[in-house]
C-alpha cells in the first residue's frame, strides 16, 4: 500500500496572492491590519521608488512583535488564522482575523520580503527573509525552507518591520491615493479613542488628505440620522444641526413588514449626516460650498466599521450598498445621496456573525449581512417618510400664509392710497388698483376652477378604475354567458328555425355588450402601471392597441375607420401613457365631433407616417370641423364648445407632445371635411 499528501505547487502562491488580491493598496492594508492586531499605536508605511535602483515598500509598527514560534506557526502559515475574534487584545481591540492571503499578496509585490520583529519585553530580535525566486525554481511550496534568525536587540523596544524590495511593478499615483484614503479611514478617524490606531503613509498625498479629513464639518449637516440596533430591535432618531430631535421612532415604526420581526444582525449603530449642497444655504456659514464638497468627495459614502476597523468596499467611490442614489432618483427632495452625505455603520460583532470574503471585497452576503443592510435601508426609508410628512404640513401652512399675506398686502396698498393728498391722483390710483384687483381675482378664480376640474377628473378616474370590474364586469359576464346558453339551446332545440327567430336579436345583444365592456377595459388599460415608466415606446404598436380598444365604439357609432400605417416600428423616448393620452384624446374628440354628422357616412382617417428621425400622426374626421373657437384657443385649458366637455383634452395633448419633444398643430377643415390634427415627434435612432 502506498499513501500520499495533498501538496501545493509553487504556482499556487501566485493564484492565492496577486491573482486573488490584485489591488496593491488592499494588500498593504492587510499588513497595516496586522499592526492593528499587534496593538500598535503607530504604523508607518513608506513607499521608496528611486529613479534608479531598488524600489521597496516598508511597513513599520510599534506593536507587540512576534516570537520565533509565532513567526513559524503563525505568520508563515497561510489560510489558517490564529486570531479569535471573541478574544480582545490588551488594548481592547478585536483582531481583524484575516487568513494571511492579503499579506501574501503584499509580500509578493517584490522579489524579496524581509521580516524583522522585536517581541515586547524581550532582548531578542527575529528576522526572516523570503526570496520568491527560490519558490520559482522549486516545484512544491514545502521544498523551500525559510530560516528565522535570532540575534540581540535593545530591550524596551518592540515592534515589527516588513520590507518588500525589488518591486515587480511601480505603484501608480492613483494606487497611492487609494491607499492613503483607505489608511485614513481604516480606524474610524471621526471618533476620539484612547490608544487609537494611527497608521501613516509617508507620502505628500497622505498629508493633504489627512488634513482634509481632519476638518470636521459635521455641524454643517442638515440632518443627522442615528439608528441603533440592539438585540435585533431598531431605535431611530433624526436630529437637526443643533442636535435637537426632529423625529424619533421605535422598532415597530421603522420596520415596514407586517410581522415586525427582529433584524437578525449583530448590534450596530448607523449614523448618517446629510448636507445641503444648495448654494443658497452657504451665505451665512463659515465653510464654503467648495470646501464641503471636497471633504465629502474624500470621506463621503456610508462606511462600515466592524470591530473598530473599516470594511471595504462599503463607502468607496461608486459603492452605493444602501441603494441611496436609486432611492433619491425616485424622491430627490427627501433622500440623501452618496454625494451629499457621510455615514458609518459601526458593528460590534464579537461573535463573528458577519464574515468577510477571502478577497476582502466586503462581507459574505448571507442572512446577517442582509439583515444589517435592511436595518440601514429601513431607517433611511423611515427618515424619508417623516420628511415627506413635514414637507406636506409646510405646504399646507404656506398656502394659508400666502392667503393671509395677500390680504394684508391689499390692505396696505389701500391704506397708502388713502394717504395720497391730491384727490385726483387718489381717485386715479383707486380706480387703477380696483381694476388690477378684479383682474387678479379673475385669474385666481380661473386657476381655482382649473385645479378643481383636475381634481374632479382625477376622482372620476380613480372611481372608474376602482369599480371598473364591478360596475360592468359581472353584469356583462352574466349577459354574455346567458346569450351563449340561449344560442346553444336554440341551435339544439330549434334547429333551422333558430336562424329565423333568435339569431338577429342575439347578434344585437352581443354587439351591445362588446361596446359596454370597452369602457371598463379602456379605463383599466390606461391605468396600467407599466405605461407610466419612461423608456422606449413603440408608436405603431401603441396606436394599434388604442385603436383596438376603441373598435367597439367605432362600430357602435357607425364610424368607418381608415388606418394608414407605414410599415416599421418607430420608437420615441417617453411613456406609453403619454402616447396613449395623445391618441385617446384625439379619438374622443373625433367621436364627439362625429355625433354632429347625420349623413350616415361618418369617417375617421388615421395616418402613421415614418420620416427621417420623426414620426407623424395625422387624425382627421368628417365632422363639422373646428368652429366658433380660434386655432390658438383650442389648446387652452377649459376652452370647449360642448356643454359636457372639460376643455382639457387638447391641453393634455399639447403638454404630452411637448414632453415627448414634439409639435402639434390643427387645421379647421381637412380634405375629409372635418378637423385634422397633426403630431410630429422625434424618434429614436436604432
Amino acid at each position, binding site marked *: 500500500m502506498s499513501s500520499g499528501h495533498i501538496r501545493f505547487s509553487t504556482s499556487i502562491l501566485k493564484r492565492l496572492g496577486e491573482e486573488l488580491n490584485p489591488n496593491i493598496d488592499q494588500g498593504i492594508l492587510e499588513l497595516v491590519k496586522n499592526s492593528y492586531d499587534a496593538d500598535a499605536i503607530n504604523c508607518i508605511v513608506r513607499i521608496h521608488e528611486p529613479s534608479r535602483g531598488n524600489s521597496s515598500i516598508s511597513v513599520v509598527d510599534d506593536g507587540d512583535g512576534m516570537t520565533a514560534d509565532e513567526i513559524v506557526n503563525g505568520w508563515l502559515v497561510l489560510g489558517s488564522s490564529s486570531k479569535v475574534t471573541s478574544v480582545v487584545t490588551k488594548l481592547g481591540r478585536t483582531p481583524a482575523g484575516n487568513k494571511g492571503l492579503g499579506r501574501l499578496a503584499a509580500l509578493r509585490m517584490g522579489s524579496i520580503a524581509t521580516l524583522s520583529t522585536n517581541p515586547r519585553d524581550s532582548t531578542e530580535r527575529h528576522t526572516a527573509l523570503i526570496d520568491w525566486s527560490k519558490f520559482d525554481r522549486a516545484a512544491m511550496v514545502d521544498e523551500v525552507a525559510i530560516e528565522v534568525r535570532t540575534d540581540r536587540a535593545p530591550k524596551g523596544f518592540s515592534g515589527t518591520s516588513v520590507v518588500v524590495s525589488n518591486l515587480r511593478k511601480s505603484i501608480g499615483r492613483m494606487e497611492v491615493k487609494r491607499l492613503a484614503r483607505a489608511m485614513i479611514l481604516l480606524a474610524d478617524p471621526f471618533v476620539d479613542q484612547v490608544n487609537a490606531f494611527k497608521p501613516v503613509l509617508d507620502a505628500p498625498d497622505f498629508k493633504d488628505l489627512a488634513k482634509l479629513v481632519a476638518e470636521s464639518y459635521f455641524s454643517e449637516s442638515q440632518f443627522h440620522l442615528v439608528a441603533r440596533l440592539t438585540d435585533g430591535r431598531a431605535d431611530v432618531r433624526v436630529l437637526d444641526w443643533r442636535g435637537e430631535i426632529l423625529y424619533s421612532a421605535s422598532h415597530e415604526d421603522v420596520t415596514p413588514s407586517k410581522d415586525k420581526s427582529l433584524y437578525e444582525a449583530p448590534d450596530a449603530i448607523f449614523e448618517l449626516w446629510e448636507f445641503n449642497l444648495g448654494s443658497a444655504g452657504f451665505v451665512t456659514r463659515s465653510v464654503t460650498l467648495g470646501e464641503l464638497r471636497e471633504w465629502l468627495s474624500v470621506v463621503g459614502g456610508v462606511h462600515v466599521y466592524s470591530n473598530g476597523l473599516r470594511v471595504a468596499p462599503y463607502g468607496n467611490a461608486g459603492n452605493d450598498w444602501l441603494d441611496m442614489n436609486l432611492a433619491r432618483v425616485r424622491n430627490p427632495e427627501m433622500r440623501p445621496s452618496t454625494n451629499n452625505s457621510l455615514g458609518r455603520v459601526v458593528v460590534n460583532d464579537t461573535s463573528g456573525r458577519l464574515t468577510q470574503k477571502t478577497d476582502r471585497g466586503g462581507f459574505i452576503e448571507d442572512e446577517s449581512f442582509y439583515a444589517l443592510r435592511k436595518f440601514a435601508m429601513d431607517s433611511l426609508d423611515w427618515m424619508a417618510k417623516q420628511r415627506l410628512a413635514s414637507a406636506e404640513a409646510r405646504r399646507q401652512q404656506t398656502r394659508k400664509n400666502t392667503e393671509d399675506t395677500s390680504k394684508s398686502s391689499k390692505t396696505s396698498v389701500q391704506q397708502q392710497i388713502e394717504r395720497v393728498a391730491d384727490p385726483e391722483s387718489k381717485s386715479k390710483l383707486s380706480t387703477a388698483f380696483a381694476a388690477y384687483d378684479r383682474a387678479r381675482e379673475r385669474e385666481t378664480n380661473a386657476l381655482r376652477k382649473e385645479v378643481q376640474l383636475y381634481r374632479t377628473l382625477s376622482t372620476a378616474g380613480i372611481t372608474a378604475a376602482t369599480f371598473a370590474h364591478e360596475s360592468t364586469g359581472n353584469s356583462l359576464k352574466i349577459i354574455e354567458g346567458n346569450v351563449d*346558453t340561449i344560442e346553444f339551446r336554440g341551435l339544439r332545440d330549434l334547429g333551422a328555425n333558430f336562424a329565423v327567430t333568435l339569431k338577429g336579436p342575439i347578434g344585437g345583444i352581443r354587439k351591445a355588450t362588446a361596446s359596454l365592456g370597452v369602457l371598463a377595459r379602456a379605463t383599466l388599460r390606461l391605468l396600467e402601471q407599466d405605461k407610466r415608466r419612461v423608456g422606449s415606446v413603440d408608436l405603431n404598436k401603441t396606436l394599434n392597441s388604442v385603436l383596438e380598444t376603441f373598435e367597439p365604439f367605432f362600430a357602435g357609432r357607425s364610424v368607418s375607420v381608415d388606418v394608414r400605417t407605414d410599415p416599421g416600428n418607430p420608437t420615441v423616448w417617453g411613456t406609453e401613457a403619454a402616447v396613449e393620452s395623445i391618441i385617446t384624446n384625439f379619438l374622443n374628440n373625433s367621436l364627439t365631433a362625429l355625433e354632429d354628422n347625420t349623413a350616415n357616412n361618418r369617417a375617421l382617417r388615421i395616418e402613421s407616417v415614418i420620416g427621417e428621425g420623426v414620426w407623424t400622426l395625422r387624425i382627421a374626421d368628417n365632422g363639422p370641423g373646428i368652429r366658433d373657437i380660434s386655432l390658438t384657443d383650442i389648446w387652452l385649458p377649459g376652452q370647449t364648445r360642448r356643454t359636457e366637455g372639460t376643455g382639457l383634452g387638447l391641453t393634455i395633448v399639447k403638454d404630452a407632445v411637448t414632453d415627448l419633444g414634439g409639435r402639434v398643430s390643427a387645421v379647421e377643415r381637412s380634405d375629409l371635411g372635418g378637423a385634422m390634427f397633426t403630431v410630429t415627434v422625434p424618434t429614436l435612432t436604432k
Partner: protein
Amino acid sequence: MQIQRVQVIDDDPGVRETYSDKIIDANLIAVPEDDEMLGTIEEFLARRPRAEAGLSDFDLKPSGYAGFNGAELVSRWYKTNFPGILCTRYEKVHIERIRPLRRHIPVLITPDKLNPDSIVLGLEECIRELSGTIRPVRRAWRTQVHFLDDEVGSNGTFTVELPAWGLEEAIRVRASDLPRSIKKSAQPGFRCHAFANLGAEASEDLFLDEWVVEG
C-alpha cells in the same frame, strides 16, 4: 375517473347560475356553492366535496364570499387530485397573481370561451394531467431566469426574461412570490434558475416555480 357533478364557485349568484347552465348543457350536474361565506381556503377544503370536479372564477373576495381567490383554490384542488377549471379574463394584474400557481392550474378558460364543449374538454385535460400525462405546453423544465430591473416601487414586481423561452417578451414576477434569498439578490443582471413550461405559446400561460440560486 368518472365526472358527473361539477361544483361551481363564484361570488355572484347570477354568474353561478350562468356557469351552471353551461354545465347542465354539457350533460353534467351543476352544484353551485350558494353559501354566503366559504371562509378560508383551509375551512373550505375541509368540507366534504359534493362533486367530482370544480369550476371557479378568479375574483371571489370583493363581496366577502371567500377568503381566497380562484387560482389558489384550483391549485389546491390539483394537489388533492381534484380536477378543476379556472375561469378568468387574462388581465395583467391577474396574470401576475396566477403565474406562481399556474403550474397546478392545468386549464384556464376565459368567460367568453366557456361553453359546454370547452368544459368537457377542459375536465378531460385535467384528468389526463392528474394521471401523469402532461402536454408539451405544460411540461416543466429547469431554466435560467435573467433579472432585468430592480423591484418597481409600489407595483412590487421584477421584470425577468427566460432566454430558453424567448427574448422577445419580458415577463413580470411579483416580489412577494420569490424566495427571500432571490428577492434580496435581485438586481439587473442577476441570474438564477427556476422551473418553467418552456413550451408555453403565450407569456400568459407561462409558470415559474421552484426557484433556485446556486450557492
